[in-house]
């Protein structure tokens, strides 16, 4: 029976009512009395030397308060990168300065040159047109491999070349070379993981508000992690101590990674509001979002698999170029390395795995984590490669996968991580039933009779979530801890506020987190509320990304609730005149084991705050506990995905017939929300595989800077999805046994769709080894022409 409350139930989301009635409070809905508006004048060339910025005439325009340029930020910190990657020779990555406003040079289309603060947005925009700008356009570095050639334009003159780092990881070269030399078969694939733009529907917004009287700054911003922004901006950019800086991320309209990072605009409004002693508001347009939000993916990879005569995988080797864009965004450096290389073993017991990644600066928008962050790139490369190997060997692609699956856990891969649990055959079994794989060839014949090429693509995935043990990531170069925190504040009458470091921007924490606390205490969920998104209210937590909210912050919340229970039991023992060890908590009642003596939750909480009859000599009054939880390991969600589609051979157009996802997320707290997370991830993965592409021309002009040019998935592009999360191998090292579900859909789905297209084409007699994403009709049709 499905539960109707607590862990495993699907209560309706409590946040929905405000969103459905227009009562949500997003950052752009916040106006501060007396606020000014800022408009950023951005570079329209990819690369150039700034000779002159003349703001004299513009400053005299109506309504202009002040115009800022890079000169105003001399002596102010630049935007920091949060992860130091060490290259294969032991040298630190190259780390160029990243000024808030361009200084001397512009390095990508969209690089901010000047910021015009005015009484109205219209006046700010008008004044921007009066700024006299003299920029010498320089040749741009756009293609990654060309950018590494001698004589290529230098994105940063002082770095000497455009290589950020050359990273190698995993099995040593000699061992890998030997395995390839001895292989019975080698499959090689060159592919591109297309550049994407995350595109949360709410564009970024920042409002800086400075109170001179007490020297306090407040930043309202569209962030997934307000405390991270407070730390980075306060300590590294503007030099504002934390106790004088409050960061509020109210309702946030989607993030998908792109709202993790610390951006120039939020530092600017905070800085300018202090300079001007007036609030400053910035609201991104969508076009600005395309040229200033960190982009995602953009890898070019050669990947090779060695197999023995029995089709066992014996070695894997990758060589990837990863685009950093013009500057290092907050977590840009770790995405293609520690979030990508460590997952390269996939679901397979390949004994030797070596990953090589060259990170390259180009005159493009910075690239950073986007839903999945490194893991979609790893999964796509590997799962396309295994499919290609199966086709070359003439074996069933699912059988080849099963033969090489890891089946014993825990399993230490050659790329440093240890998978704690999983059952890859179980999710594959479920998937095969979900899509009726056995009946596929009949369906292919039926489609052929209609003149359509039908294909079924299958893949599996493994990912690492819940990042991660702080001491480990510190050794790997992280410049922050990656724990999270929760404070459980029990009020006198027994209701509870839980202040959490995680931030909800669509994930439903306000509904899910109370399910856990209420179940632990045996009280009604309506007695528990979540507080998030305001550094003045919540403990220092690292926020929401990497599918970590429940696995890390939820674990902190469990630990804090356990402390509450321990203390409440002491109080109950006093009230019941019993020994603490005999107290049991069930359904909100504390009772003495083996007796009918009990005291209710509310009586205990009241005693904590009105401690008249209370063990004051042993414990303090009050009932409020905080826990910081630092995970012992990553979590490892896994699963198997399938896409069945038809290709119209006349046009190359794809129609998705069915899309199925069989996931192992460990324990599930709210199935409704988990399924919703998978649906959304699938649509983003389908978008990458079929529609989306962030394109630059050879001069570094951004060709896809609006929804007229960048193909977002629409309702008619996608089907109803089939999703399953019934295969459960609980995480072994966090108290809820949860693994995280936010990114799986986006990680697991692109290879299924591409594998399906290639199955359709090859099954229809077209010998096509690979097509780069997105599978647009023109690309598919052209591939069919040979």
């Amino acid at each position, binding site marked *: 029976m499905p539960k109707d409350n607590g862990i495993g139930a699907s209560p*309706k*989301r409590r*946040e*929905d*009512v*405000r*969103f*459905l*009635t*227009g*009562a*949500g*409070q*997003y950052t*752009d*809905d916040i106006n501060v009395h007396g606020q000014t508006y800022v408009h950023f004048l951005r570079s329209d060339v990819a690369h150039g030397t700034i000779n002159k910025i003349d703001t004299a005439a513009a400053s005299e325009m109506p309504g202009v308060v002040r115009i800022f340029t890079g000169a105003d930020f001399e002596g102010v910190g630049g935007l920091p990168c949060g992860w130091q990657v060490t290259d294969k020779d032991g040298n630190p990555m190259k780390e160029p300065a990243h000024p808030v406003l361009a200084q001397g040079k512009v390095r990508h289309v969209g690089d901010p040159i000047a910021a015009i603060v005015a009484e109205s947005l219209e006046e700010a925009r008008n004044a921007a047109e009066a700024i006299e700008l003299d920029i010498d356009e320089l040749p741009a570095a756009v293609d990654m491999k060309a950018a590494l050639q001698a004589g290529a334009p230098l994105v940063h003159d002082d770095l000497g070349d455009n290589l950020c780092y050359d990273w190698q990881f995993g099995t040593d070269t000699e061992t890998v070379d030997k395995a390839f030399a001895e292989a019975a078969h080698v499959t090689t694939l060159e592919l591109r993981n297309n550049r994407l733009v995350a595109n*949360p*529907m*709410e*564009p970024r917004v920042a409002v800086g508000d400075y109170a001179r009287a007490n020297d306090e700054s407040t930043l309202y911003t569209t962030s997934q992690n307000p405390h991270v922004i407070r730390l980075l901006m306060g300590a590294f950019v503007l030099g504002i101590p934390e106790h004088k800086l409050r960061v509020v991320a109210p*309702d*946030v*309209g*989607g993030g*998908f990674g792109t709202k993790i990072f610390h951006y120039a605009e939020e530092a600017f409004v905070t800085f300018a509001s202090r300079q001007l002693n007036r609030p400053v508001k910035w*609201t991104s*347009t*969508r*076009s600005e979002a395309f040229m200033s939000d960190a982009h995602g993916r953009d890898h070019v990879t050669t990947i090779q698999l060695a197999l023995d005569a029995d089709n066992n995988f014996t070695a894997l080797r990758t060589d990837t170029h990863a685009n950093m864009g013009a500057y290092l965004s907050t977590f840009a450096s770790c995405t293609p390395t520690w979030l990508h290389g460590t997952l390269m073993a996939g679901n397979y017991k390949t004994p030797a795995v070596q990953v090589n990644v060259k990170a390259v600066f180009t005159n493009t928008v910075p690239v950073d984590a986007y839903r999945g962050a490194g893991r979609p790139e790893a999964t796509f490369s590997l799962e396309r490669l295994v499919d290609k190997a199966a086709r070359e060997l003439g074996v069933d692609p699912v059988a080849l996968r099963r033969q090489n699956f890891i089946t014993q856990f825990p399993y230490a891969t050659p790329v440093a991580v240890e998978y704690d649990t999983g059952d890859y055959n179980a999710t594959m079994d479920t998937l095969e039933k*979900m899509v009726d794989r056995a009946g596929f060839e009949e369906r292919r014949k039926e489609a052929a009779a209609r003149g359509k090429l039908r294909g079924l693509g299958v893949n599996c995935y493994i990912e690492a979530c819940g990042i991660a043990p702080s001491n480990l990531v510190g050794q790997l170069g992280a410049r922050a801890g990656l724990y999270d925190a929760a404070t459980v504040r029990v009020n006198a009458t027994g209701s509870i506020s839980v202040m959490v470091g995680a931030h909800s*921007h*669509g*994930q*439903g924490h306000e509904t899910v987190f109370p399910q856990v606390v209420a179940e632990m205490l045996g009280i009604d969920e309506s007695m528990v509320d979540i507080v998030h998104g305001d550094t003045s209210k919540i403990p220092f937590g690292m926020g929401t990304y990497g599918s970590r909210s429940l696995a890390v912050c939820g674990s902190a919340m469990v630990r804090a609730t356990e402390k509450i229970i321990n203390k409440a039991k002491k109080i109950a023992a006093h009230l019941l005149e019993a020994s603490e060890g005999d107290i049991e908590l069930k359904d909100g009642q504390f009772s003495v084991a083996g007796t009918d003596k009990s005291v209710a939750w509310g009586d205990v909480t009241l005693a904590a705050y009105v401690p008249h009859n209370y063990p004051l000599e042993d414990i303090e009054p009050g009932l409020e506990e905080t826990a910081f939880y630092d995970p012992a390991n990553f979590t490892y969600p896994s699963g198997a995905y399938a896409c069945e589609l038809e290709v119209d051979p006349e046009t190359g157009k794809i129609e998705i017939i069915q899309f*199925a996802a069989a996931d192992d997320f460990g324990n599930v707290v709210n199935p*409704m*929300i988990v*399924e*919703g997370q998978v*649906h*959304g*991830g*699938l*649509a*983003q993965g389908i978008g990458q595989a079929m529609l989306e592409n962030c394109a630059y021309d050879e001069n570094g002009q951004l060709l896809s800077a*609006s*929804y*007229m040019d960048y193909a*977002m*998935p*629409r*309702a*008619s592009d*996608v089907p*109803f*999805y*089939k*999703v*399953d999360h019934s295969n459960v191998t609980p995480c072994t090292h966090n108290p809820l046994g949860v693994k995280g579900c936010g990114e799986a*859909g986006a990680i697991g789905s692109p290879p299924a769709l591409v594998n399906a297209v290639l199955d359709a084409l090859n099954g229809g007699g077209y010998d096509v080894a690979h097509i780069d994403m997105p599978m647009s009709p023109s690309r598919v049709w052209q591939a069919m022409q040979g």
Partner: protein
Amino acid sequence: MAEVTMKVNGKTVTKSVKGNTLMVEFLREELRLTGTHVGCDTSQCGACTIHVNGKQVKACTMFAGEADGAEVSTIEGQAAPDGTLNAIQQAFQDHHGLQCGFCTPGMVMAAASLLKDNPKPTEAEVRHHLEGNICRCTGYHNIVKAIMAASGQDVSGIAAE
């Protein structure tokens, strides 16, 4: 500046606005009805969808002055005065048809317009009607399901498997 008078969610309002004030700016900044959202600058995303004289309109595509004398309905006017959600809003909650909530007002307004003209739409008709409304969170699955449920159709067979 010109004076405009319109009925918004049943209440008559008169304001003086500049000629180039977009309807969506008028709603958000003059009337502080911030449920109507702005998600793009090319009239593609649909987050600003409202009803003007009973017709579905993207509020970024018209000037406030063009609504002079019109009856305007926004997301803030959809629930009953006591806060009870209407059938479409309730179906969105029942079927988890929203996540971050940013596209949601536009989706609800678009759905209302569809169901007014087509009380029992097919899945394909629902998806086609949402052509001008982009959602990045839900993958549309539960939005389509919610709209079909709001139309009184049985959606229990739709896979969530």
